């Protein structure tokens, strides 16, 4: 790091253009969802095409934006204080992600501990049970909904257990890579980071298999609250693994290009923190969604 001065960038076109991309993605996304799930909606340009156009737009802008940031980093404009801003910012971003998952975990516990027993008549809800669905049996996983939809729960000790092992190992390989980065061992770093990316991809492949299997055995998104929670929790986790894998892949490329040194490696560490966060979320998922 060559400077002590806090770097305030020149004016930049990327925030505004990124907002335009985000707006296209949002408007396109809303219409795309409507047009693909509602019978009375005709496909139009403001649906699928706009959504993908917005997404591509956003991707290009973000790439250009980060290209600027990377240039600033490698030309030594970043002070240690700026590195601190980036690191703290990333940690708070991860905290916001934790709270996003907390909403879904909270919904799951509320369902398991309160909604299901109440629908079964617990507490002061005898009449709820009697008048709404007298034949409803409270249970978790909820294999038969009050409305009568049946489903099969996903066991913990097949693919999910293998996936748990994969993510745990990936955390270890990434930590080895981190130590290698700090000690300047490029070969070890590249090898173990590549292994981490590979493990991430294997995880995603197995999760896709698991979803196919789930749909085959009748565990679907519309199979009641168990399916809703199962797919939303594991799905958002999977989306985060995807982002984490891409993140690690990009920092791997940057490692190969020689962008990082032991005292200038914020982006690398941000990717690593993100990966560990995704791992911890999975452990909670494995215990509460699959196991207990």
């Amino acid at each position: 790091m060559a400077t002590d001065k806090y770097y305030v960038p020149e004016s930049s076109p990327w925030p505004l253009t990124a907002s335009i991309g985000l707006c296209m993605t949002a408007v396109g996304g809303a219409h795309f969802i409507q047009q693909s799930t509602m019978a009375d909606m005709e496909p139009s340009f403001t649906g699928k095409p706009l959504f993908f156009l917005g997404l591509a737009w956003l991707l290009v802008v973000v790439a250009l934006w980060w290209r600027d940031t990377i240039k600033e980093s490698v030309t030594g404009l970043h002070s240690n204080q700026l590195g601190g801003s980036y690191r703290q910012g990333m940690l708070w971003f991860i905290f916001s992600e934790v709270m996003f998952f907390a909403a879904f975990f909270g919904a799951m516990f509320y369902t398991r501990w309160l909604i299901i027993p109440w629908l079964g008549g617990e507490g002061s809800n005898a009449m709820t049970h009697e008048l709404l669905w007298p034949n409803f049996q409270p249970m978790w996983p909820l294999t038969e909904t009050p409305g009568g939809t049946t489903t099969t729960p996903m066991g913990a000790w097949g693919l999910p257990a293998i996936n748990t092992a994969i993510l745990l190992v990936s955390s270890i390989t990434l930590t080895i890579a981190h130590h290698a980065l700090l000690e300047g061992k490029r070969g070890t770093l590249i090898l173990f980071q590549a292994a981490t990316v590979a493990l991430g991809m294997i995880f995603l492949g197995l999760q896709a298999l698991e979803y196919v299997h789930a749909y085959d055995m009748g565990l679907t998104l519309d199979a009641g609250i168990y399916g809703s929670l199962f797919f939303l929790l594991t799905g958002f986790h999977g989306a985060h693994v995807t982002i984490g894998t891409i993140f690690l892949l990009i920092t791997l490329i940057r490692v190969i290009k020689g962008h990082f040194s032991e005292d200038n490696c914020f982006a690398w560490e941000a990717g690593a923190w993100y990966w560990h966060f995704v791992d911890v979320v999975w452990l909670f998922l494995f215990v509460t969604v699959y196991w207990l």
Partner: protein
Amino acid sequence: MSTAAATHDDHHDHHHAPTGLKRWLFSTNHKDIGTLYLWFSFAMFLVGGFMAMVIRAELLEPGMQFVDPEFFNQMTTVHGLVMVFGAVMPATVGLANWMIPLMIGAPDMALPRMNNWSFWILPFAFGILIFAVLMSAFGAGNPSAPNFGWTFYAPLSTKYGPASTDLFILSVHMMGISSIMGAINVVVTVFNMRAPGMTMMKMPLFVWTWLITAFLLIAVIPVLAGVVTMMLTDRHFGTSFFDAAGGGDPVLFQHVFWFFGHPEVYIMILPSFGIVSAIIPAFARKPLFGYASMVYATASIALLSFVVWAHHMFTVGMPLAGTLFFMYMTMLISVPTGVKVFNWVATMWRGSMTFELPMKWAIAFVVLFTCGGLSGLMLAITPVDFQYHDTYFVVAHFHYVLVTGAIFSIFAAAYYWLPKWSGVMPSKLLGELHFWNSLISANLLFFPMHFVGLAGMPRRYADYALQFADYNFWISIGGFWFGLSQVIFLVVAVRCAMKKGEPAPAKPWEGAEGLEWEVPSPAPFHTFDTPPVIK
């Protein structure tokens, strides 16, 4: 252009201010972005205010006059959303942008480009929402805008929501992205950018309250994102989060929503606490009474805000233990809030008081916010809430804390810092007119709502029983009067922006304290390039 940044050297990176459209569209300057936020929020205040005028016009007399009930529902819904997310929140973010770096001696916000992104998402997000309203008013077939109340309870917003609900969901996601990035920027700026010697317990209270506000934002906006995502999947992908037939529960929506929604209330009011804590000492010419207790009280309010959410849901039904817990926790909040009000009053006690415009607004804030706080205490009592729930008493309560509370303090801040922003003093005559007209009309507008509420008039209806006609007439008169009074502020602000008025010295207020008064007025484009040392 940012691509040129790489070729710059240390010595001349940013000593020329960009000009023209580029200055505003591509800004990385906390002052310009703060200005953008403030103008945007005032525009939204006028848009949301116009919707309030439609509501009050319809309620001027009993019976249906101007709009149909369906459109009335859209007005109450979008009025609330625009005011909460478009007017109050961006206004306080604008103040944070302008003032926090100046107050802590930082060269800018910690992450200037992200700062600009936080802002530019907002016009698009609100463009989407307002487009839905315009389509409803003028579009072919008048497709309904969101019509389920600003709290968008399921199943009104899921099973029965209009098609525009999906656009609404995505626009809430966008606002959320903007808020989270803005909040991260504030937290990082405060933790990482303070000038040497500016310890945490030396920070101006406005910085403290915003730090805690930003923490609340990062903690609860993702929960809002979660709940609208569940809405979206319930609407289109067959999930059953809010559908009891599938094993879910519409009440789950309310729990998740209010887990966001109650801290959100403090997100809107905590910065106001910081503003009046800056203004009252300045015009009482005494240091703030109980600075440390103010910090701890703010933190206590923030922490308690996570465990009071179900007081919005007493009539929905909850186990007795839950009801009692949420009732007592809610009442507990009055303790740190009381500490604050006591401290403001104690600051004024035996002060050398003068009553310039910012002080007038600040004192009005203390009195009228306390009024709203007391009606809040009444609403906290569960059996009493059974009576008050969803009546105009609730409307009176939250408009006292949000209009005569949050918005009055934002005006106080504007009159206090406009000299620093623009370099000219805001017009005294227009300011006095704005203040007195707003003060009287706001009370005419909101105070009688207590009475009609206690007498049983429900909120969110386009019509009412004849017995409420007299009060509603005067409430509407107060509403139009308050709405028109805000046009005066538009003139005040435009005059300042055009540099019309008496030139302001670096420190226009005799008793004002803080680093922001050490720099000239208007504040130069870049300030504190090298951090000042605070002793």
